[in-house]
């Protein structure tokens, strides 16, 4: 992904062939079962794979979406589903995930569960993540996805991709279209 310094380029990539929403049944921040397809059916949905012990890209990606979301009309804010799926489920239990997301936007949905399930779900969206591993010093190295995928409320298809270069301005500009399932 060479999306750096693409300041003038559009942040959004509209896909010719949308992704099917992954069939993920995981655990939310309340510790309850969350069926992604069922819960987000007919709702504009943004999905990102990351982890909370991540200083840079994960919090900035989620914060960008949070700030952009606040500029939507209230009804559309309530309609939008922003789903953060952890790639580090051992450390990101429901409580940890909930605490972290509350600091960004209390409406955001955090999902955790079995790593293999999460990895397989990510793979159906073209997102490849390796299991957390330890480096020489025993520190855990986790991986995050490098894309946010937007799903249309009309088709439930994942039709727009955002790379990590997407700024708060990009999301602010695009979300009003995304919540209607239109092309940004």
């Amino acid at each position, binding site marked *: *992904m060479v999306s*750096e310094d693409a*300041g003038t380029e559009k942040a959004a990539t509209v896909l010719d062939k949308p992704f099917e929403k992954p069939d993920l049944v995981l655990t939310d921040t309340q510790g309850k079962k969350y069926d992604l397809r069922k819960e987000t059916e007919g709702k504009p949905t943004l999905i990102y794979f990351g982890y*909370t*012990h*991540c*200083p*840079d*890209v994960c*919090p*900035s990606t*989620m*914060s*960008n979406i949070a*700030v952009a979301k606040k500029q939507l009309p209230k009804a559309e804010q309530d309609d939008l589903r922003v789903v953060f799926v952890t*790639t580090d489920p051992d450390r990101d239990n429901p409580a940890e995930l909930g605490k*972290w997301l509350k*600091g*960004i936007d209390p409406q955001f949905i955090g999902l955790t569960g079995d790593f293999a399930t999460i990895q397989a779900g990510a793979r159906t969206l073209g997102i*490849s*993540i*390796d299991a957390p591993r330890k*480096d020489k*010093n025993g*520190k855990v*190295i*986790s*991986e*995050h*996805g*490098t894309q946010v995928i937007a799903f249309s409320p009309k088709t439930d298809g994942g039709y727009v991709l955002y790379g*990590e*270069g997407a*700024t*708060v*301005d990009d999301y602010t500009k695009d979300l009003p279209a995304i919540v209607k399932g239109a092309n940004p």
Partner: protein
Amino acid sequence: MRRRLGPAALVLAGALALAGCGGSDSGSDSGSGSADGKAELSVGSAYMPQPVSDEMAAGFFTVTNKGGAADELTSVTSDVAGQVTVHETVGGAMREVKDLKVPAHGELVLKSGGDHLMFEQLKRKPKEGQTVTVELRFARSGPVKVEMPVKSATYHPKTGH
């Protein structure tokens, strides 16, 4: 034959000088090229996005080297964190690195999605509008103290907000 040796020898000398410059990280300063300069570092564009977590944060800056020799950023300390490490981002993974090179007549750029500082064991949670102090240490040059402003969680240097 003699006439053709001239330019060839010149090219060779040029290559040696270059090797002396770029190779100063090898620890050997016996090369003739090393005499031609040393690193002249300055640090700018520093900022920390207000962290979400109360355990960790990231930091970014640019080190500019006007000098004719390379240097390396080798360690970082800060008043707000028990530990600061330097990381590179490869795809979706962040890896700790021992040092980052500051090329001669060049820049070392730390930015979101790329090389960055990772602050751990935060002593307090930095808030937008505050400043954190960071000391950068280099293999050759003296330490540089940087006052790093805390910006919003969504701050982007390109847009300025």
